[in-house]
Structure formats: structure tokens, C-alpha cells
């Protein structure tokens, strides 16, 4: 009778390149991502692409806690990289997946994360085509860190960039802001109203591709993750030398998110999103943009939040408040919320 070895925890040896590594890959990882390129188990993935122009990006994920309302580190690791490819004007094709796992991490949790990665990748029509697994001593990492790199095929005729942005362009966001960051911080602080908060973590590529293929006047796209909408708008303003005016009344913010932010002293504009994009679009095309968004589950609450205006003194992002006052939206410092993604 053969003795059946069963590991319910990650051991250092799982990253040692020997039998346990092979076991981990064949039993846990490969079954999750069944595709021809990966199952060849070559030293590199071989891709045959027709597009001559590619986008390439990479991102690491260290979110704490690993599981949160609306997502987990696995879903985030796919969505984050897919979204970076999407807002650059490409259709995501393939991802790599690297895991750094702490000795003692529960296999059951790893399986949950892998299955979440697989599900999200399937929904986003991307394959996981290469990967790596490393294990480190207990204490050398916090449970699990994930890196994904991705390539996307650039959509023909699409040329997004700061240089395309002009005075009068409208700024839209595809739904409520601050959901992801406030969910994470509330869950970490164990705040009672967390049940009403849910991360917006979602892959946006289907919607961005649809927009780019159907609307001519799209100038620029960015996903407002760390630093939130405030950081993205300030980046646009600094890079173009133009100013931006937004209206507080038009910002889509859920009451629970606003309440949590008020209680903890955060400005929702600076809070991270993981399923949102900012689009800068010409005034002629904004109507078409809104129509397409509203027909997509990820864009139903789309809003025009402001527009690009001339700079008077220095480029700045200014907000008209609910009472008709004005205030500047500064570039956030970004030290308030560590490890949100």
C-alpha cells in the first residue's frame, strides 16, 4: 500500500524545486489554470499573437486582509493587472502569476485564492500562461504575496495619452468611488458598519474595449487605484499643464463609504478604487460614452464629474463644493492606507 502524503500547510520545501514543488504545481496550480500553453510546462510560455503592438505591465499584490468583502488577493491580482492593460487601450491576452508564500500558510487558503484567480481570469478572457512559486521562512513575508505581469494587444487606431487632452474635455467615472479602500480599512479596524461596504474589485477590460472600439473622442483613461480620484486628476493636471474642475454634487459616493470616511477622517477622493476608471473624453463624444457605460453592469452609475479647464496661475484640480464654495483637491500623500492592494 502506498503511503499517501497530504500536506495541509505550505512548507519551505514546496518552493525547493523537488518533489513537493512538483506536487504543489501538479495538484494545486495546474488544475486551476487549464490551458495548452501552461500545461506544456516549458521554461517560458510561447505565445502566437497577431497584433504587432503590445502593452506590457506588472504589479505586485500584498493586500491585508487576504479576503475582504467583494474580493480577495487572487481576484485583485488579476483585476489590477487586467485593468492596467485595459486603460492603456489594449485587450488583455495573457498573465503570468508568481506566488511568494510564507512557510505554514494553509493549503486550503491557497486553493481558495487559486480558484479565485482562475475564475477572474476566465471571466476576463485572459490565460495564465506562466508562473513561479517561492516559499519563504515564517515571518519573512505576511502569508502570501502575489505578482502578476500581463500583456495586452493594443486596439488598432487607439492612441490614448496626456497629450490628447484639451480644454473642454469631460471627465467621467464609471461608478461609486472609494469603495475598495474604505472596505479594506474598515475590515482592518473591525468597524461595525463594514457589512454595508464592499470592494468594487472588478476587471474592466470588456467595457473599456467596447468604449474604445465605438467612441472616437476618448483621449485618456486611468484606473484610480492608490491615491484615488484625487491622485489621478492631479496627475492629469500636472502632466498636461491644464486645470480640472470637478463638482462635489456629481461625485458618486455611497452613503456607507462617506460615513466610514467621515468617521475615520479620510477624504473619499483620496481612497483607492479597484473597479473604476476615469475617462477623459471630448464633449462631442461624452453622450455616446455614457450610453455604452450605462448598458454595462460595471458602468450603470457612470457620472460626468467635471471637465478640463484653462490654467490661470498654476495647474490645479479644483472642486466646487455642495454649497457653491471652492476648494483645491491636492495630490494625496499616500501614506494613510498601507497595503490596500
Amino acid at each position, binding site marked *: 500500500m502506498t503511503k499517501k502524503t497530504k500536506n495541509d500547510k505550505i512548507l519551505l520545501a514546496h518552493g525547493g524545486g523537488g518533489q513537493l514543488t512538483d506536487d504543489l504545481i501538479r495538484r494545486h496550480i495546474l488544475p486551476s489554470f487549464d490551458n495548452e500553453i501552461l500545461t506544456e510546462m516549458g521554461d517560458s510560455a510561447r505565445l502566437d499573437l497577431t497584433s504587432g503592438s503590445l502593452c506590457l505591465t506588472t504589479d505586485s499584490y500584498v493586500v491585508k486582509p487576504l479576503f475582504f468583502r467583494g474580493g480577495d488577493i487572487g481576484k485583485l491580482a488579476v483585476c489590477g493587472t487586467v485593468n492596467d492593460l485595459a486603460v492603456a487601450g489594449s485587450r488583455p491576452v495573457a498573465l503570468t502569476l508568481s506566488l511568494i508564500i510564507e512557510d505554514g500558510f494553509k493549503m486550503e487558503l491557497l486553493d481558495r485564492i487559486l480558484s479565485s484567480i482562475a475564475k477572474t481570469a476566465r471571466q476576463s478572457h485572459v490565460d495564465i500562461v506562466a508562473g513561479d512559486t517561492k516559499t519563504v521562512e515564517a515571518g519573512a513575508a505576511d502569508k502570501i504575496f502575489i505578482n502578476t505581469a500581463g500583456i495586452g494587444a493594443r486596439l488598432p487606431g487607439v492612441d490614448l495619452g496626456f497629450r490628447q487632452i484639451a480644454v473642454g474635455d469631460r471627465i467621467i467615472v464609471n461608478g461609486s468611488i472609494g469603495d475598495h479602500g474604505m472596505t479594506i480599512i474598515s475590515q482592518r*479596524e473591525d468597524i461595525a458598519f463594514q457589512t454595508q461596504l464592499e470592494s468594487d474589485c472588478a476587471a474592466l477590460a470588456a467595457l473599456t474595449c467596447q468604449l474604445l472600439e465605438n467612441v472616437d473622442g476618448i483621449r485618456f483613461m486611468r484606473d484610480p487605484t492608490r491615491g484615488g480620484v484625487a491622485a489621478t486628476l492631479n496627475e492629469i493636471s500636472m502632466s498636461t499643464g491644464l486645470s480640472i474642475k470637478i463638482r462635489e454634487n456629481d461625485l458618486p459616493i455611497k452613503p456607507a463609504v462617506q460615513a466610514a470616511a467621515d468617521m475615520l*477622517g479620510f*477624504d473619499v477622493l483620496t481612497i483607492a478604487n479597484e473597479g473604476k476608471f476615469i475617462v477623459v473624453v471630448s464633449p462631442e463624444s461624452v453622450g455616446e460614452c455614457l450610453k455604452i457605460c450605462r448598458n454595462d453592469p460595471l458602468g450603470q452609475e457612470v457620472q460626468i464629474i467635471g471637465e478640463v479647464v484653462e490654467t490661470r*496661475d*498654476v495647474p*490645479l484640480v479644483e*472642486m*466646487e*463644493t*455642495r*454649497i*457653491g*464654495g*471652492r*476648494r*483645491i483637491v*491636492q*495630490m494625496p*500623500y499616500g*501614506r494613510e492606507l498601507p497595503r490596500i492592494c
Partner: protein
Amino acid sequence: MAAACESLGRQVNIMEVCGTHTVSIFRNGIRSVLPPNLKLLSGPGCPVCVTDQGYIDTVLQLADREDCLIATYGDMIRVPGNDRSLETKQAKPNVKVVLSSEDALQLARDHPDKTVIFVAVGFETTAPATAVVVKEAAAESVDNFCILSGHKLVVPAMRALLSSKNNNIDAFLCPGHVSVIIGYGAFSEITRDFRRPCVVAGFEAVQIIEGLCEICRQLSTGEPALKSMYPAVVTEKGNIAAQKMIDECFEPVDGDWRGLGTIEKSTLKLREEYDRFDAFKRFHIRQSPSKERHGCRCGDVLCGLIDPPECKLFGQICTPREPVGPCMVSSEGACAAWFKYGQEKIRT
């Protein structure tokens, strides 16, 4: 409001005595819709900001003790002392951030081998919560718990401001939270003795503007009065149970304030019967005289004498990332609010 200000024909200075008001005024861009001759001064309403440097240095010294745990509200950990802050000490496991005084007491219960020192700061809003845990500790004999009381009283500070020869304050927008505890009646002495309008307001933009309108109306008619525009939560007598709790545990003594100096009967000290929970007594602390950091003008900001950008350090070497003075540390601090929401673009 515009008509009232115009009829006065001079600059009108209204001080808000609450950090939450300061932040709301900025977040809602209220300054930008006010008449040009109406100026808002941010007063000593942020608990972290008014805490004297001597007290901060005492906390830092206590944090060096291996046999103690320091339990502090989050805002306090970044306030710089003479050469460091608690944050740089937080790497040491003996500085713990707590969300409530109860958490501090629980820390003492959980660590019977250490003395837990609760950094008890704040106005009448947080003092009752400190009193509750002192009483609990006494009832349960949690003898490894003590507090370093830096609690302050609002009305004596307002009196001190108006008594100063430099003062330029025409009226006070009185704090909503503090008024819930002490009742709006507590400000009647300011109106009576100094003939200044005192108006309690809520924190929404419209409530603040209503409060400012009422003040301007009073100033233009020359009839300063005490008025609460926040009737939903503020009564004339306030929360009697909370006042009783403060009174049973604490007595007002002369105390040091940043920028305002020593103010008579303005600081809460534990009563004798709770001596054993008084960290000052337990560790024989004689607080060193306050010495502010060189160039820092937090004191002048707190007195409404200057706006933060008039301080040479503001936005240059004093930023939220590397604060020099406490007004840049606390999210309710006037300098932090100016920096974050200011009317001028701050180049970073």
C-alpha cells in the same frame, strides 16, 4: 450675512473653537463664499494641538521605560517632541494605539506585568470616557493602570484668548461636540463678561453658515448674545451625567497650553482619592517647562494671530509627512487642514 458684514464696514474676525469645524469649513470651501471682510480664525480646538510640549516630552520619556506600556490615541503618536516622536518609538512594542479609553484599560488587564499609562488628552468630550475607566480600574483594582491627564477645558481657554492684549476676536463659533457635554449655557460667561457673540453650530456646511449668519446679525445690531443653532443635540445644561462623572474624578487646576501659556483652572487633574491612578504621582513627574520647537508658530496659529501660511515653516519644512508642530499632525489641526484643502496651491 453679506449685508450685515457690509454695514459693519470693517474686518470681522470670527473664531471657530473646534477642530471638526475647521476641517468642515475647508472641506466645504466655506471661506470662498464668505463676504470679503469676514475672516475665520481657527482657534484652540484640536486637542493634540493645544497639548503643551512639556506634556509631550513627558510621554516620550515614559515611553523609554521597559516596564510600561503607553496607550495613546492615534493622533498623538506623530507629534514631535524635542528630538523624536512616539511614532519613531512605535517600532518598540511598548507604544500602543487605542481607539478608546476602554481599550487602554483592557490593555492593562491583558498585561498585568506592565504598567499601562493612558495618554489622556482632549476636552470635555473625551474626559468623561477617561473618568469612566478610572472608576472601573478603582472598582476592579486594576492597579497596573494609570493615566497621564492632559485633559483641558474649553471655556477657560476662550477667556484667556479674550483677556490677551493681542486678541482680535469679534465672536466665537462655539464647538458642537463639547457643547453636548457642557451645555451651551457654559458659554454665557463669555457673552456676559466680554460682550462677544457665542453661537453653537453643527458641523454640516449649512449649519456652520447659519451660525456665522447669526453671529454677523448680532455684531451688526450690537447685541452680542449666546445662542445655540444646534438644538437637536445641544441643550442649555448639557449632559449632566457626564459632567458629574468628570467632577467626581477630576478637579480643575492651572495648566499649560501650547501658545496660550498657563491658564487658570483650565486643566483636569485626578482628585486625591484616585491618586494611585495618577501617572504624574506614580512616576514622580515634575513636568518640565514648555519649550516650543524653533521657528514653529503653532502657538500664534492657535491664538488666531496668524493664518498657517504665514509661518515660515509651513509647507516648506513642516508638512503632514514631516510635521514640525502639532497643528500639522492632527487631521483636525489648522495647519494640516490649510495644507490639505488650502486656497493656495502648495507645490510638493
